């Protein structure tokens, strides 16, 4: 099964592939976003509100944020592993990154689904 590539048996491949798939998803979303902006031409607050009104668009946008944050988390994780050899310091920085990512995800979710449309 090609899905096996995302299991612990392929620790290198699953991270690399996840990051690429996230990037692909983001690229597709941004294309759709541009098309939608061109189509609806929002010029004021109510226009932007209408853009994000359909539930399916909010779900897609939420998926975009998940992909973006996962992509960023994997990237920063690699950077920390490369540049910070001190284990305790790296764990602390990674913890900060984790908190930031989770915070961003919650904020995105709150904005997308918590607002009174």
């Amino acid at each position, binding site marked *: *099964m090609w899905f*096996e590539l995302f299991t612990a048996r392929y*620790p*290198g491949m699953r991270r690399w592939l996840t990051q690429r798939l996230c990037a692909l998803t983001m690229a597709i979303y941004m294309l759709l976003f541009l098309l939608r902006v061109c189509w609806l031409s929002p010029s004021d607050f109510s226009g932007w509100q209408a853009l994000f009104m359909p539930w399916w668009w909010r779900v897609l946008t939420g998926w975009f944020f998940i992909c973006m944050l996962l992509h960023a988390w994997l990237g920063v994780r690699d950077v920390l592993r*490369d540049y910070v050899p001190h284990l305790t310091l790296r764990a602390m920085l990674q913890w900060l990154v984790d908190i930031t990512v989770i915070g961003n995800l919650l904020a995105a979710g709150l904005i997308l689904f918590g607002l009174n449309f």
Partner: protein
Amino acid sequence: MKFSLYRFNPDVDKKPYMQDIEVVLEDSDVMLLDALLRIKEMDDSFSVRKSCREGVCGSDAMNINGKNGLACITKLSDLQEPVVLRPMPGLPVIRDLVVDMTQFFDNYHSVMPYLQNHDTPPETERLQSPEDRAKLDGLYECILCGACTTSCPSFWWNPDKFVGPAGLMQAYRFIADSRDQEQDARLENLEDPYRLYRCHNIMNCTDVCPKKLNPNAAIAAIKDLKIEKAKEKHQDGQSGDNPPGNRGGKKIFGIKVI
């Protein structure tokens, strides 16, 4: 011509320093290596490694004006003065421009850079079709000078874990070889978060390669092949064929039925 040379003799110097030097060149001095040999005539304590002096052995790889290259095939007329010469980055300096390449060759050896074929050797050579042979073009020409690997930041940070562009290109040279029978084992050998996947495609390796090879493409080809292999496995599973390694019978309750 003006030069700024990295100097370090561990027996004498506490730390490295840059030495400015001006050399009077002769008409026959065309390449950087010629100038280095002039410097060596002036100061025989200056150390530089060289052998074939024609871009085949890869001994005189060094950092030339901030970019790795071979001194013997670098034209003096192409260089901006003062020519700043440093040893290749990321490897321990033995003396002046000479670096210890043990780690580089350890990584190279880790990919088993030799043909593995378990069939009885034929009377003459193992034959390939012209198409299969063409797949090795752009791979076998590597002279292992180390210019690519030592210009790769991923190698600088994880020299003992990341194989590096040169090693990975040699890995692919044997993965792509139709005569080799250990393709799966070779791909498995590169499966951990560091050995292959620390390459982030910044393409320093391709930029500096004095033989104009493309290690980055080889690395990408290995990743693609891994995905192709997984797809093949998936298709084999769907068509009901036996998976590789289980040819000749199905397993029922753990017993192989032929």
